[in-house]
């Protein structure tokens, strides 16, 4: 009896990677999933933070897919290593700050390391030629295979018949005739295959949860780099860019103002890392200051956050300012009128 071969499937939580894994499972290969956590690819975070969404937390689609397929899933923390991909993408960015091609090369490279460490034979992805404008094109397929170092250990079951044979096909570990030749942006072939497999519930659209493809999020990230004077970030930055109104009245600081109670509670957790402000005379949101504000700047920030509290129409509002070290002072400010917070300040 021949030895059962083992494949690691990159599982994003979308339909394509789910189908690719299923195609290979059906051929008798032992498949386990890998999901890489960069910090940017989780749509559930805003649900976990915002008050109105906490009662209905979103499922983690990669875990859900693994459970549907009956395979193990290994979630790998790549937050630190991913910084270099985002900060210095060799192949550049997409329409926003999404370094899709470099990201794919990085993940396949990490998968290659993983299969070597864990005794697996090859790698599967759900890529389809022409499905995505930056990373999934006919020209980029060999680039990913070559630059990741995976070469012909990388099998794309959904479009394999449009590509040269890989090692698993040549060795007979999988039957090329039972792989597919999907191409183009249409989702119809995938949906038909999903129906054949009996998959009725799956994430739509496939794999579209990366914050870096979002224009508003990307603008905040660029603003962060420009005003810090360095292209660097920590996980806390990644998280904070998802929360609150970001208002930068001056280049040396910005104000992050909670939009609702859940966000205020989330920002509370950062009071030891940032100066925080909250109205003590009226109810209102918590705000953090990112940067190095002067006393004059704190008064300006106070006028901004007073605008978003119950004291917005009062002549004067008391603002409690708390430093990272816990030193407190109260300042009196006149709330800004809406038109005084100019549009250019909003990041």
């Amino acid at each position, binding site marked *: 009896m021949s030895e059962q071969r083992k494949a690691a499937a990159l599982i994003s939580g979308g339909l394509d990677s789910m189908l690719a894994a299923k195609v290979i499972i059906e051929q008798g290969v032992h498949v386990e999933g890998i999901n890489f956590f960069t910090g940017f690819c989780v749509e559930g975070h805003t649900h976990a933070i915002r008050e109105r969404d906490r009662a209905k937390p979103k499922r983690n689609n990669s875990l859900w897919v693994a*459970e549907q397929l009956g395979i193990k899933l290994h*979630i790998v923390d790549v937050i630190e290593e991913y910084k270099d991909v985002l900060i210095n993408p060799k192949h550049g960015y997409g329409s926003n700050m999404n370094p899709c091609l470099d990201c794919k090369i990085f993940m396949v490279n990490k998968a290659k390391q993983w299969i070597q460490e864990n005794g697996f034979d090859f790698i599967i992805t759900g890529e389809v030629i022409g499905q995505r404008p930056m990373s999934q094109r006919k020209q980029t397929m060999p680039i990913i295979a070559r630059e990741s170092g995976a070469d012909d250990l990388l099998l794309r079951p959904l479009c394999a018949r449009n590509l040269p044979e890989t090692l698993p096909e040549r060795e007979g570990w999988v039957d090329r005739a039972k792989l597919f030749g999907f191409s183009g942006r249409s989702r119809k072939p995938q949906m038909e295959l999903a129906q054949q497999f009996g998959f009725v519930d799956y994430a739509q659209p496939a794999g579209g949860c990366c914050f870096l493809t979002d224009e508003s999020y990307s603008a905040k990230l660029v603003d962060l780099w420009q005003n810090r004077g360095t292209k660097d970030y920590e996980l806390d930055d990644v998280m904070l860019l998802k929360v609150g109104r970001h208002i930068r009245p001056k280049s040396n600081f910005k104000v992050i103002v909670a939009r609702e109670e859940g966000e205020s509670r989330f920002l509370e957790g950062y009071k030891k890392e940032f100066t925080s402000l909250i109205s003590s005379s009226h109810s209102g949101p918590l705000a953090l200051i990112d940067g190095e504000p002067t006393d004059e700047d704190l008064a300006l920030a106070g006028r901004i956050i007073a605008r978003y509290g119950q004291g917005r129409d009062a002549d004067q509002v008391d603002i409690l300012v708390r430093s990272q070290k816990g030193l407190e002072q109260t300042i009196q400010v006149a709330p800004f009128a809406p038109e005084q917070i100019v549009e250019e300040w909003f990041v």
Partner: protein
Amino acid sequence: MSRETLNARRLLCPLPVIRTQDRVKRMAAGEQLEVICTDPGVMQDIPAWCRINGHAILETKAEDGEYIIVLEVGE
């Protein structure tokens, strides 16, 4: 039966799952792990991770804004 505790407060999913996964790797079958979190998403994600990786959920509870899951490491 030995029981370890993992503080995953303030972490958002999937980080509590990753921290649980990394801790369980260092534990032996039959040992128990209590994970304390503040992201309600763990009530779905950690049990799902346990089901697909062969670990048993012994208890889940929510109290005072925290979510506590006790699991037993499988073979």
